[in-house]
């Protein structure tokens, strides 16, 4: 039969267990507002009993483990969902940033500019002899060019913005992956599996931050280390205790100013050369910025180039057949073309630097109104016959271009395949609107999904103050009772000592 000292030890184990448990309750309450904190609970177990004869006497309680309450599959889902949500938000913001400029307010919209340009030819047809009408044609042509250029520039600014974001994002990604790798090391060396709950919380928070930046897939290996790959599954960012560095380097293959040496993204996985992952990142702000820069915004730019090439080519070809106010043919003069590029115009009326093969890239950049015509608008060829200043046939033909079909080449084959110019603009507007709507919807859906997952995670892992208050009470009572027990044993001991004192 155990002695009094042994009973004192039982009391002590109760005190220690209750104090430890209270400590954990305190830790939970202290972290009630910490984002990503998983509540911890204690595992109490009764100690190995002592055998006296046929009886087994208990030896008290011990606090065997402190565990975080978490569902790691839910956490992985949250990480991946975070990538998609952040990607959708960045895409939405990127498209929304340019969409207002393509909205037509009836006076300065792209559609109005094109319309005013052709209307100026109609006015020229009414009064081809009038110098002020001719000056107006030049002015409207310049407004059209300015309008196209400013919109193109805005798209380019957004692309540059996206490109700059890529550089800063890559730096942040490297910091995060290094931290995750070192936490992986710490967690894999924990004494009891699952003991390092706070380490896991930190790692999960870092993984979610990383997921915001770049689309990733995560899974835990058999030593609880988080393995991270890009969302396309191709390149590895973190494997065990090793983080692989991501880098961004300028791509010089496309000349400035068409592309401002936009950066390509690489992951150095220890091979001979870093792996180019530019097209392998789908989600996260990095994936979204890459898509905005290389596909979405670039696509809008291509439409502007095609539209400009259509207007320039068609105008120039018709203009060449006409006669100016002095009655002379403009063909083969310095003012045979209304619009010029940096390189001389070819037989198709477009600068030689611009080709159908790459969607007339650079057309908007290159286009200017022919300086010879700006200097002397009487050189505009409104007439279709020599020495007839009142003849307006060519001006009418130029004005009617606005209703002609197949004036814009939208599929890079060198032949027109569109409706009239204004339909190209309205389809661009509709594309941008649809993109914006789509990304907004995706972003809302992902928000909903993520918040549902977060709520579910909170139901499992977050601290509930009512629950902690109850635990606090019960451990407090446990502690008080154990203390009372010790005091009883103490009294027994005191009585014993007093009995034998004399």
């Amino acid at each position, binding site marked *: 039969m155990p002695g009094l000292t042994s009973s004192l030890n039982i009391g002590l184990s109760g005190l220690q267990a209750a104090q430890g448990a209270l400590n954990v309750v305190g830790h939970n309450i202290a972290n009630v507002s910490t984002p990503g904190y998983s509540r911890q609970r204690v595992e109490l177990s009764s100690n190995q009993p002592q055998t006296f004869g046929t009886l087994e006497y208990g030896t008290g309680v011990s606090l065997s483990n402190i565990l975080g309450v978490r569902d790691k599959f839910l956490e992985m889902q949250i990480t991946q969902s975070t990538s998609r949500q952040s990607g959708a938000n960045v895409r939405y913001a990127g498209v929304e940033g340019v969409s*207002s400029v393509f*909205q037509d307010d009836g006076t300065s919209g792209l559609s109005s500019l094109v319309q005013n340009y052709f209307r100026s030819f109609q006015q020229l047809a009414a009064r081809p002899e009038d110098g002020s009408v001719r000056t107006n044609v030049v002015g409207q042509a310049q407004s059209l060019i300015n309008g196209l250029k400013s919109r193109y520039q805005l798209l380019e600014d957004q692309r540059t913005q996206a490109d700059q974001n890529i550089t800063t994002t890559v730096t942040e990604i490297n910091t995060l992956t290094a931290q995750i790798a070192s936490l992986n090391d710490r967690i894999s060396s924990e004494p009891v599996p699952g003991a390092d709950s706070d380490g896991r919380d930190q790692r999960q928070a870092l993984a979610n931050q990383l997921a915001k930046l770049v689309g990733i897939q995560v899974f835990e290996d058999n030593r609880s280390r988080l393995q991270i790959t890009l969302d396309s599954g191709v390149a590895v960012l973190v494997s065990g205790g090793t983080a692989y560095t991501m880098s961004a380097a300028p791509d010089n293959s496309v000349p400035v100013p068409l592309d401002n040496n936009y950066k390509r993204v690489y992951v150095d996985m220890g091979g001979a050369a870093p792996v180019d992952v530019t097209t392998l990142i789908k989600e996260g702000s990095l994936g979204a910025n890459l898509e905005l820069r290389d596909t979405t915004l670039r696509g809008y730019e291509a439409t502007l180039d095609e539209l400009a090439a259509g207007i320039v080519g068609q105008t120039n070809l018709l203009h060449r057949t006409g006669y100016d106010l002095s009655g002379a043919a403009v063909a083969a003069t310095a003012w045979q073309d209304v619009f010029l590029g940096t390189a001389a115009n070819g037989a198709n009326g477009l600068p030689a630097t611009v080709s159908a093969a790459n969607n007339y890239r650079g057309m908007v950049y290159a286009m200017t109104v022919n300086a010879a015509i700006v200097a002397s608008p009487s050189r505009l060829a409104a007439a279709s016959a020599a020495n007839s200043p*009142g*003849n307006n046939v060519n001006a009418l033909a130029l004005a009617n271009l606005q209703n002609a079909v197949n004036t814009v080449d939208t599929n890079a084959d060198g032949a027109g395949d569109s409706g009239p110019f204004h339909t190209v603009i309205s389809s661009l507007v509709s594309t941008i609107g649809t993109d914006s709507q789509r990304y907004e919807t995706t972003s809302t859906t992902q928000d909903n999904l993520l918040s549902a997952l977060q709520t579910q995670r*909170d*139901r*499992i892992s977050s601290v509930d103050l009512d629950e902690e208050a109850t635990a606090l009470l019960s451990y407090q009572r446990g502690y008080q009772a154990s203390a009372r027990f010790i005091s009883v044993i103490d009294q027994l001991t005191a009585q014993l000592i007093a009995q034998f004192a004399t």
Partner: protein
Amino acid sequence: MSLRTVNPYMSYQVLLDLQRTKDRMANLSEQIASGNRLNRLGEDPTASALVLNFDHSIEQNKAYIEQADSAASFLQTTETVLQSVNDSIIRLLELGARGLGTGITAAGRQAIVPEITGMKSNLISLANTQSQGKYVFAGTRTTTVPFTSTATGATYAGDHNDISLDVAVSTTVKTNIPGDTVFFNGDATAVPTATTGPGSSGDLFTQVSNLIDGLNTNNTATIQTAFDNLRTILGNVNSLLADVGGRQASLQQLTEVTKNYNLSLQTIQTSYQSLDYPTAIMDYTNAQTSQQASLSVLGKSSSLNLFNYLA
């Protein structure tokens, strides 16, 4: 209960819903302030593109109306000049008839000449009328003075070409009558016939000069021929007047049609673009109520806690 329910004020869903309500309110107030349903392309991409297409049609029609107005102003000028020419010929015929009278002397005939000479130079200046910077009766050579008076009539420096303007999609209207058609009764550049071209019986100025000649030389036969030819020319001018009047009438009708069409286009466009105020305001009020309700519930529930009841 299978799942724990944690403190409601920690819930992401509540926060998200509150944000959405706020977002909706901001959107609605923007719409209400601008009166425009389409403040962003993403709100309704199809309608945005449609509005743009309607805009194009409306603006194009406006441009056509503008063209029709220009055409009408040229035709108006042409009509006014033809009317004056018509009046002048009638006066010439009166004077010619007086010259053919039996009771008139040679001196009496010569006394008529100064008025006719004045009328000839008057007719020349009518033929050289300018409107909006162009000579109306010069064909397409609108910057050249078309008619120059000579002793026997006048020379023509214009051409025989028409000028047309587009007043609707693939609808054109001729805005001029070449000067040689009016004053020479035919193409001045072609080989003249007995009735057409310079010097022919259809040449107004030659006939006026002949009349002067006949009156000066007291030659009734010449006066008679000129008188007869002038009557034929009067008929020609009258039919040209009718032609111009007809063109103006059809132009006016076309403009009316285009304006009406534009009105209906604008009505349709407005239906896509403008805001339905009652609905928007009701939506706004609803959003406001729901926001206030959730805020007050959140405020109350956040103070509920077991710790409040522990001593």
